[in-house]
């Protein structure tokens, strides 16, 4: 029996050898790649000991790090955020166990480990200077952002989002998601437990304050999508503002489709311009059917729907959909932004901006410049064309028609700014509940657009003009007045 005991002890030795070889592999050879894995949630807390670069809006810090250690103790950097929840949807939060927004998307720049900072890092090693993270300047316009945020706060218990773009560059001037949260509440390194509890509370909040609705929530765009349908009608069918289309009071699309105001033109055919002005449903359903599913979807894609690859600004933007419809009833409803059409607020802002910018959609971006800690520019975003949505003449005709919306007898009079022509389009989207989503998209001034906006009030239950247009107006006023 001693033979087998000896063999067993050799077997035991082998088991230990396996363990020893394996831990050597894990700790000796794999360690670096494990540490760099995104699932290493500690890398966020680890870097609390290094100064992290600030995030700025209009030259002012909105997120910055400060050493809170007592004198003589090793540095401990606490992240601070200014302006409460105003910028949180874009700026995000840098927590011990993860990061969101720009804090997450540009983490390697902010903490100084990015390759683009390699030369500087190398220099720091030689000179012995403590490495610091880069600073990030955002494109946000504080006035626009504040106007949008305040307008939502005034509504009180409604959720929603608003996006404002500079049509000429694609720079994101405002990105409001409501409700938001104060990032300071979830990032404390001195009271970790409260920070974690607060975060869990936010995660479980039914109003989803952690969700950036401006970029990452899809809604049926409703009548605001008629701008896309009108663009397709002009581009593919050579229609114009005066082209007429059947506009019955009720159109049979499987289930009857009525008009919001009852009648568009007393049941007679209605012009494209008038249909936009008062937001006629039946004529636009007919336009969509005439344009055809493929063309309508293609036109939407030219504005940025159905993207082949995920758009990043550098935050990831959720895809918006306008699929090819073959069924007449579904296609008709797609023409008025219902059925399978779904859009993020940013996407609808891109539609408005595309029309405003002579048909050319600029690639949206929110990071303007990245500066090294010595303030030398590391990267500067230059505007680039995202797509050619429509021809300049089509854009001009669309603008002409959209201006009617905010004029006398238009459907979006609440967005009108005295002395300035505002182009717009309202939307009141059915969503299967009693409370509709209320939209407004538009830009101003119509002849020299400086800002394009899209606003959605989630389950607003009113009309686009009633709830969304005033928000859009205050955001536009922040730039044009």
């Amino acid at each position, binding site marked *: *029996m*001693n*033979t*087998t*005991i*000896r*063999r*067993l*002890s050799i*077997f*035991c*030795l082998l*088991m*230990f050898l*396996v*363990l*020893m070889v*394996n*831990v*050597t592999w*894990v*700790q*000796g050879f*794999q*360690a*670096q790649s*494990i*540490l760099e*894995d*995104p*699932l*290493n*949630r*500690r890398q966020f*807390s680890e870097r609390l000991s290094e100064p992290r670069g600030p995030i700025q809006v209009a030259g002012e810090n909105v997120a910055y790090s400060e050493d809170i250690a007592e004198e003589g103790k090793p540095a401990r950097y606490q992240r601070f955020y200014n302006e409460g929840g105003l910028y949180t949807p874009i700026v995000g939060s840098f927590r011990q166990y993860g990061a969101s927004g720009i804090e997450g998307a540009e983490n390697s720049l902010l903490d100084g480990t990015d390759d683009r900072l390699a030369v500087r890092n190398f220099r720091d090693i030689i000179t012995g200077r403590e490495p610091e993270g880069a600073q990030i300047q955002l494109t946000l316009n504080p006035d626009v952002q504040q106007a949008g945020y305040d307008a939502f706060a005034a509504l009180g218990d409604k959720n929603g989002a608003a996006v404002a773009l500079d049509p000429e560059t694609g720079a994101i001037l405002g990105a409001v998601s409501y409700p938001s949260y104060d990032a300071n509440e979830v990032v404390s390194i001195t009271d970790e437990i409260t920070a974690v509890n607060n975060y869990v509370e936010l995660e479980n909040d039914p109003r989803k304050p952690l969700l950036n609705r401006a970029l990452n929530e899809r809604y049926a765009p409703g009548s605001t999508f008629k701008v896309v349908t009108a663009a397709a009608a002009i581009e593919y069918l050579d229609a114009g503002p005066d082209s007429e289309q059947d506009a019955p009071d009720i159109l049979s699309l499987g289930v009857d489709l009525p008009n919001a105001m009852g009648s568009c033109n007393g049941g007679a055919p209605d012009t494209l311009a008038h249909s936009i002005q008062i937001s006629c449903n039946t004529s636009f359903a007919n336009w969509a059917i005439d344009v055809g599913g493929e063309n309508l979807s293609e036109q939407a894609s030219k504005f940025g729907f159905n993207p082949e690859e995920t758009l990043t600004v550098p935050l990831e933007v959720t895809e918006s959909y306008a699929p090819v419809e073959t069924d007449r009833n579904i296609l008709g409803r797609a023409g008025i932004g219902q059925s399978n059409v779904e859009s993020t607020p940013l996407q609808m802002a891109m539609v408005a901006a595309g029309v405003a910018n002579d048909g050319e959609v600029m690639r949206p971006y929110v990071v303007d410049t990245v500066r090294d800690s010595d303030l030398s520019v590391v990267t500067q975003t230059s505007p680039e064309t995202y797509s050619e949505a429509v021809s300049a003449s089509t854009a001009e005709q669309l603008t002409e028609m959209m201006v009617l919306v905010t004029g006398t007898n238009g459907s979006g009079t609440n967005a009108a700014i005295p002395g300035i022509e505002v182009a717009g389009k309202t939307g009141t989207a059915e969503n299967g509940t009693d409370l509709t989503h209320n939209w407004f998209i538009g830009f101003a001034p119509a002849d020299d657009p400086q800002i394009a906006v899209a606003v959605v009030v989630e389950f607003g239950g009113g009309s686009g003009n009633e709830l969304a247009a005033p928000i859009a107006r205050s955001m536009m006023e922040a730039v044009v007045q």
Partner: protein
Amino acid sequence: MSDTSAPEAPTALPPVKRRNAELVLIILAVVITMVGIAIAGINLNGRVPAATWTVGLTFGAFAVAAHVAMRFVAPYADPLILPCALFLNGVGVAMIWRLNAITTEDIERAGVGMQLVWTAIGLICCFLIIVFMKDPRVLQRYTYISALVALVLLMLPALPGLGHEVYGARLWIKLGPFTMQPSEFAKIALVIFLASYLMSKRQVLQIVGKPIKVGRFTLIELPRARDLAPILVGWVLAIGMLVVLRDLGTSLLLFGTFLAMLYVATQRSSWVTIGLVMFGAGATIAYFLFWHVRARVNIWVNAFDPEVYEQVGGSQQLVQGIVGMAYGGLFGTGIGAGKAHQIFAADSDFILASIAEELGLTGLLAVLMVLLVLVERGMRVALASTGTFNKLLASGMAFVLVYQTFIVLGGVSRVIPLTGSTTPFMSAGGTALMTSWIMMGILLRISDNARRPAPQAIQDEGATQVIRR
């Protein structure tokens, strides 16, 4: 294996005690424990904590008391076993103190929970066994009783009302304020049962068989169908544990120990082959039939898949442990200087990952080496002891130690799927510590008996022969 039926001759050993060597090593183990606590305190708080003396010296007192007792009750016992076990126990205590200290408001008030109390209780159990169990062979009488005890202990947590679930595993029972993990004790009962059962049946299991030959070579010697009964029972139990109690750790431990002891007793590798094939087949079938087995395997294979990580009961704990090990690297962060407290169950199931982070690969390998020395000393006790029962008992206990370490560290470092299991002597937890010390008691008793010089016959006036021990 021609010498199978030859009587086992005890390996002759000179009657050396080496108790002084034991004392030196024990003092070293205690000093390492105290230094561990001291460095942890310096890293956490900037100065040597009082616990260095309170915890360290209490532990030291226990250790020296154990040594002194050994001089009287088991002077010939192996001198390496006690220091190795105390070293592991001490490193565990230091680590547990460090992990408690970070969550305690005032570091000077941090303790080690019940770990010192359990160490004392474990040592007392060890002592009582050495004193009162003069010859472990008395345990042979309780073959089937120990089988029954093992079964009952394994099944206790499944009882409603008594069972207590922690982190999804139903391994504990709750008696008033105490929670216990009866499957720990079951290991001892199981080894006792196997040793006595195999001792009486080994001849049959050993000899009768039907060789299956390929040409001149014997491929495998198949046992008779009826002799397969015990292995079948063991297999059903192991698979039952896996499926009903969802406890892969105990299932592996049960069946592995069973196969190892079967092999030692019968010297037939065919048993092991048959057993492994059966377990493999059973586990494969369980994999396809039961989602919780699949989940375990999935966590093991795809630990670093973000989706698996985010799942409830996903790979988060495993990844945290591995990340900790990665932070440790070759030399560790230093005890108290790392973030081992962020590892899940850092003081129990994942204590080796905590060690790996703060003491590095170097420290982990040192701990493993001491464990290996302890185990090989256990095997040595088996070799040196007389009688089949003692040999089986000693080698069985040594194997349980190795195997348990393999299951827990193999799980933590992804050699095998992760299963909840304790690390011998180190994990926080009373039952496990007590069990380990009871096993040491049995080993030390066998060792003392084996190494004690044979009684000498003295001729004294006339015909009466007096035996002096």
